[in-house]
Structures are given as C-alpha cells and as structure tokens.
C-alpha cells in the first residue's frame, strides 16, 4: 500500500492511495493518511483509482478522515474508486455520506459547492 501526496497547499490536500486497503495495507499507512488529510485544515481529495481492494478496515480509515474533516467544517471527496472497490463502498453505505467523484474536475466542483 502506498500513499502519494499529489498536492498539499493552502487550497487543497490531494492524496492518492495505491494497492490493497486490507488489514496489512491499512496498518502500514493509516497514521500518515489521517495526519496528512486531517491536520492541514483544508478540503481533501482522496484518489482511489489505483486501489485494488478495500475491506472494512480501509473503509473505516476513509470514514474516520471524512468525519474528522466534517467536524472542522471541511469536506473530503473520494475520487474514481475502481468498479469492485466502488461496489464495496456502496454496499457499505459510504457513498451515501462521503461524496464521490469520477474525475478531479468533478471532485473540485463538489468541494466548491460545500
């Protein structure tokens, strides 16, 4: 599991997760992910396009970050989860409460609308 920081400035934190968000993958990046996404007090885009697998621990990490940002009056948008990962997020009810976009332009538009 890899966490890449694409953008981190005064306007946006944009990170990309690559690999498997399973037990091992989450334990390797969770602290850094939560710090990177929730400590800067700006809106967040999490690119999931390279996530091969996600289970409840990974979902919990994403929801935890989204909840922390909500408490700060900020939003987190999930970007481009691949088919089966997206299906898992839908079954888990995540897409009902965390906005999800298919491309970066749409993600920025969702953040701007909040």
């Amino acid at each position, binding site marked *: 599991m890899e966490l890449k920081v694409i953008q981190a400035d005064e306007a946006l934190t944009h990170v990309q997760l690559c690999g498997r968000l*399973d*037990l*091992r993958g989450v334990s390797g990046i969770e602290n850094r992910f939560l710090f990177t996404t929730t400590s800067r007090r700006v809106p967040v885009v999490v690119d999931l396009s390279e996530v091969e*697998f996600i*289970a*409840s*621990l990974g*979902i*919990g990490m994403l*929801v*935890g970050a*989204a*909840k922390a940002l*909500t*408490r700060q009056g900020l939003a987190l948008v999930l970007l481009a989860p691949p088919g*089966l990962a997206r*299906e*898992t997020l839908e*079954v*888990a*009810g995540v897409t*009902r*409460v*965390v906005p999800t976009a298919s491309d970066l332009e749409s993600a920025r538009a969702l953040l701007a609308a909040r």
Partner: protein
Amino acid sequence: MDSVLELTIRNELEQVSFVAERLAPLLETWNVAPRTAYRTQVVIEEVLSNVVRHGYPDGGQHEISVSVARRDEGIEIRVRDDGVEFDPGAAAPVDLDQPLGERRVGGLGIHLVRQFVDSLEYRRADGRNDLRMRL
C-alpha cells in the same frame, strides 16, 4: 474439478494477512470470476479478523481452521474456531442511514459478509463456532 485451500492459523492478525496472500493468487488460478474472487477475499478478511479481534477476550493462543473450496456451483468457505460464540447471521444490522457524524464503523465487516455471501450457515458444537458460507 474441485480445488481446495485448507489452513490452520493462530489467532493473530498477521495470520489473517497470510491467508489473504495465499488466497488471492489461488482464486486467479482457479479462474474464479473477478467479482466473486473479490468478494471471497473480503469475506475471508472480515470473518477471520473478527474472530481474532473479538473471539478471545481472555487472550491465549488458539487455532482457527479455514478452508476455501472451488466447487462447480461456486466458492465454499468454512471457518471453525473455539472463540466466544458468535453467529454473524444473527448480528444486529448496521444502520446505513445514519449521517456521517454519527456513523459507526463497528459491524461494517459483518455487514459486508452478509451482503456478499449467497448463503451463511452457523452452528455451535463442542465449544466451537462452525461457519459455512457460499458465494
């Protein structure tokens, strides 16, 4: 033709990852459809991690038996453990209508299991949980 993975692991989270790493390439070798293979991996991770996390509140080393079989009609999973009695099919449902701020993550793994399997049979016998699932 049937193909089977049978393992006995210790009640440690690292051992759950060990099963996942053995299972993923096998499902590909068995030519399991991508959605079924994906769901099988989710179910295995959720069931085993649930047993390890919650099955042994008093600690100690225990063994968990897991088998995953490719049958003509699909995937058959069986997990047996001597942890505390727990029927995933009888667990309280997760409230997916809760707003984000009130959303609890606990129980989500079992929710995924129940959504992803076609059938789930549980029995408790001789002090052991015996869970059979089909996808």
